[in-house]
């Protein structure tokens, strides 16, 4: 494993949580938010956000709208839908269950 590689399947959780925390963001902002929120540990391969966002657009977990950034550039802003919030809850509980179990297993006896 490369150092600080995100386990597969958790990228969507991270994106959903980030969008849930902030109203709307474009791709770069999501990447930066994940980086900062994790104290620079989780450096996602930034391009991989876009296929993930497209998958979430297909499934209806997010919607996208073109807007203008602070620096006056055109950017696509994503926001969470109701279905997206439900999915976030599902994934969070799944995450807690799995990683809680892993933590219990690797706990120093």
């Amino acid at each position, binding site marked *: 494993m490369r150092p600080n590689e995100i386990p597969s399947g958790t990228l969507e959780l991270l994106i959903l949580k980030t969008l849930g925390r902030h109203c709307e963001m*474009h791709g*770069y902002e999501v*990447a930066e938010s994940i980086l900062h929120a994790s104290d620079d540990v989780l*450096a996602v*391969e*930034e*391009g991989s956000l876009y296929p993930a966002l*497209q998958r979430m657009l297909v499934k209806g977990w997010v919607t996208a709208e073109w807007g203008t950034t602070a620096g006056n550039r*055109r*950017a696509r802003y994503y926001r969470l839908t109701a279905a997206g919030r439900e999915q976030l809850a599902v994934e969070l509980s799944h995450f807690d269950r799995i990683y809680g179990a892993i933590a219990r297993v690797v706990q120093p006896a």
Partner: protein
Amino acid sequence: MAELLRRLRMLFNRSRFRAELEEEMRLHLNLREQQQIASGAAPEAARRNARVRFGNATVIRESSHSAWGWGWLESLAQDITYGMRSMLRSRGLTAVALLSLALGIGANTAIFSFLDAVLLRSLPVRNPSQLVVLGEGGQLGQTGRYGSTDLYSYPFYRQFQQKQQVFSEVATLFSYNPDTHGTIDHRDQMQPITADLVSGTFSAH
């Protein structure tokens, strides 16, 4: 259902989808570049760094596109167009192949239709499921047994016809059908035929 509608909308706006994704990706790279330069990197190093952190753009474009699930359709369309182009390029070969197919399919269809009408549908009866045959017949008009239920006598048939109340009409058949020679349709030559002796009511219904 809503997902299908979204996917359909994308299908009809593929070029716009590609353009928008391109713009999005370009913005991301530029922003990362700017951030790098702001942290003190040289412009060339900043651009390289941004690209490295972004990842393989082609792969990303492909997986974004395939997320909508129309890859198979586009492949199919491309293959069909390629096939058409090849066929139009070698017209002679295409013409011969088409002609062979047409002859083969046409001839087979004609033969089948003919046999279908003659052989398979030879009973133009209104309710074939209501047709019942009693007995087996085919014993050259004689049976040695009394009370045979394979072959019925003519007087029996007449009584049955008059007294029965179940069937709309009764006819006789299969009682005497030898293989013999005869002519059909006023043809010149005799040919082997199988004849059947039937009552007049046979063709009533």
